[in-house]
């Protein structure tokens, strides 16, 4: 756990980067410091490993004032990843990663073994890359090396300063996914600085949103930040489509799925028409013998078929993309519904078999229920509330 106690950083020219900051960063969570440039988020981060010394106030790492720890020793227990990677151009990838173990007097062979373990962990091809130099790697690979290097001595704390800002959006998304996956295995206390609120919402367990001038605007879970911004500043910063984005935090399991118009392709057209009419639907979903979706059939088309025809003979509209209630969010279900020609989305299980279909009406009910549940939870105080919340 990292605790900021009334921390202020004033530079000699009078600028105040951080102003009486109180913030508690719980252990084993990803806490994202986000805000516009010059808001003091990076300064806050750098005060944790004493790259910047506070003008006043204290920073406690597991109860101990970092100012009392020898800086070099303190830093060897805190991983540090920066946007420009800061890899040593004169060292091979494995030796870059082995840096802190070597500083901690491990023997060279053990340090390199550890480096190769970490290359595996962050998804780098050990055989091909261990002996290469940083300039021979792509930006995304270099950033992975940076993360591996920070993790080499297994520090409990990892500081990341805009770690994914310099790579293209596709690589960035994969590095973010990688961080979430790694955190699932390693449970580090991660403090990540970014100016990108999307990134904060995606990777953060907790978000500390800064105001210009080194103040905190709101410290909350991503879902609460989207659902209950404390003021206009937060609302504007989080963005205008926060309502949609908040849906990412609601599981699609809440959806009440309709299964009465899911029919196999050998069903007769007449039976299909009857089923649709009973359910009050204009479309039926056609599935194969294994209940995998084939396409949508419209009642109007079915009526023009000869009486002996089966569903499989009807012209079918494409299923489009499906969603999985057990792993996807309401946002994915909504997206699938919007993109579907029939205004209905298909829910499948892990084998790709149809569980049912959903519609705008059913989504609306699920969203309302989820929001009400979240609000009740917030009122009863069961959402983690960080001590440093300002507002």
């Amino acid at each position, binding site marked *: 756990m990292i605790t900021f106690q009334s921390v202020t950083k004033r530079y000699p020219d009078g600028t105040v980067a951080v102003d009486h900051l109180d913030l508690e960063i719980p252990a084993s969570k990803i806490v994202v410091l986000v805000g516009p440039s010059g808001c003091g988020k990076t300064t806050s981060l750098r005060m944790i*490993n004493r*790259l910047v010394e506070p003008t006043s106030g204290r920073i406690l790492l597991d109860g101990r004032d970092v100012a009392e720890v020898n*800086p*070099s*020793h*303190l*830093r*060897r227990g*805190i991983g*540090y990843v*920066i*946007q*420009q*990677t*800061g*890899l*040593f*151009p*004169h*060292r*091979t990838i494995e030796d870059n990663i082995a*840096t*802190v173990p070597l*500083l901690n007097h491990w023997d060279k062979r053990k340090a390199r073994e550890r480096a190769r373990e970490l290359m595996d962990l962050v998804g780098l091809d050990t055989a091909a890359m261990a002996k290469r*130099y940083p*300039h021979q790697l792509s930006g995304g690979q270099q950033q992975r090396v940076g993360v591996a*290097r920070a993790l080499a001595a297994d520090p409990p704390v990892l*500081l990341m300063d805009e770690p994914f800002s310099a790579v293209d959006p596709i690589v960035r998304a994969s590095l973010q996914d990688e961080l979430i996956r790694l955190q699932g295995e390693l449970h580090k206390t991660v403090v990540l600085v970014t100016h990108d609120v999307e990134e904060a919402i995606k990777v953060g367990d907790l978000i500390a949103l800064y105001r210009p001038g080194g103040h905190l605007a709101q410290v909350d879970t991503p879902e609460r930040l989207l659902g209950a911004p404390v003021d206009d500043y937060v609302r504007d910063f989080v963005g205008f489509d926060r309502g949609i984005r908040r849906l990412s935090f609601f599981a699609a399991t809440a959806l009440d799925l309709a299964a009465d118009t899911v029919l196999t392709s050998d069903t007769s057209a007449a039976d299909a028409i009857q089923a649709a009419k009973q359910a009050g639907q204009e479309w039926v979903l056609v599935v194969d013998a294994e209940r995998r979706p084939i396409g949508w059939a419209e009642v109007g088309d079915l009526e023009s078929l000869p009486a002996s025809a089966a569903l499989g003979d009807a012209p079918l509209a494409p299923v489009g993309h499906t969603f999985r209630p057990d792993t996807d969010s309401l946002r994915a279900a909504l997206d699938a519904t919007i993109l579907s020609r029939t205004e209905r989305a298909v829910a499948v299980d892990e084998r790709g078999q149809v569980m049912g279909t959903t519609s705008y009406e059913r989504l609306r009910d699920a969203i309302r229920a989820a929001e009400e549940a979240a609000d009740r939870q917030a009122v009863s105080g069961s959402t983690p509330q960080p001590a440093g919340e300002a507002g």
Partner: protein
Amino acid sequence: MVWSWIPQNWGLIWQYTSDNALLGLVPPLIGLAISIPLGVVSVRWGWVYPPLLSLTSAVYAIPSLAVFVVLIDYTGLGNLTVIIALTLFSLCVLLPNVVDGLRGVSQPVRQAATAMGYGEIRRLVQVELPIATPVVIAGLRIAVVSSISLASVAQLIGVGSLGYFFIDGLQRDFPTEIYVGAFAVLALAFVSDMLLVTIGALLTPWRRGQRTLGGVWAISLAGTGR
């Protein structure tokens, strides 16, 4: 050109070439040993650098013969006088290269090193100086080549060097000797430079594949200018 003169005087040519090599190589190495701490100080305390640089440039501007003559009063007619003078000259090239090399270490690299727990000295030795090596070697190459060329002037105060052949050839109106001397200076400069290029390559394995031979030649030729 009297070709037969060469084998007849082989011993003499070899003698002066090795004397000249010593005078060409030792001063830049001493100069490097002085430039590294001066460079570190200059990077750490920026205000030191401009006056220091002016001083080394001013020294370089003094004709070598004048420096020899001034030094003779203190150190006599010998190798020491020449080595001191050439060392002073080499600083003019080496100091800026050490400073540029150290300043060329990017801020993120420096910051990452600090954040991983390097102390200042260790960071200097294990991170900054190795990264500065290519620029320092480039300066050393110029210093060595120019020192080899300057060393021939030492013959004017009687210190053995390839300059002997220029003076002797001129006095006896015997061009062969001058050609041989000039060729020996060039050959010595070229061999020394290649030696440094090789050492540089061995010290900087990470730059393999990034070098061009054209660059090597351009610097060699520029260095012999004085």
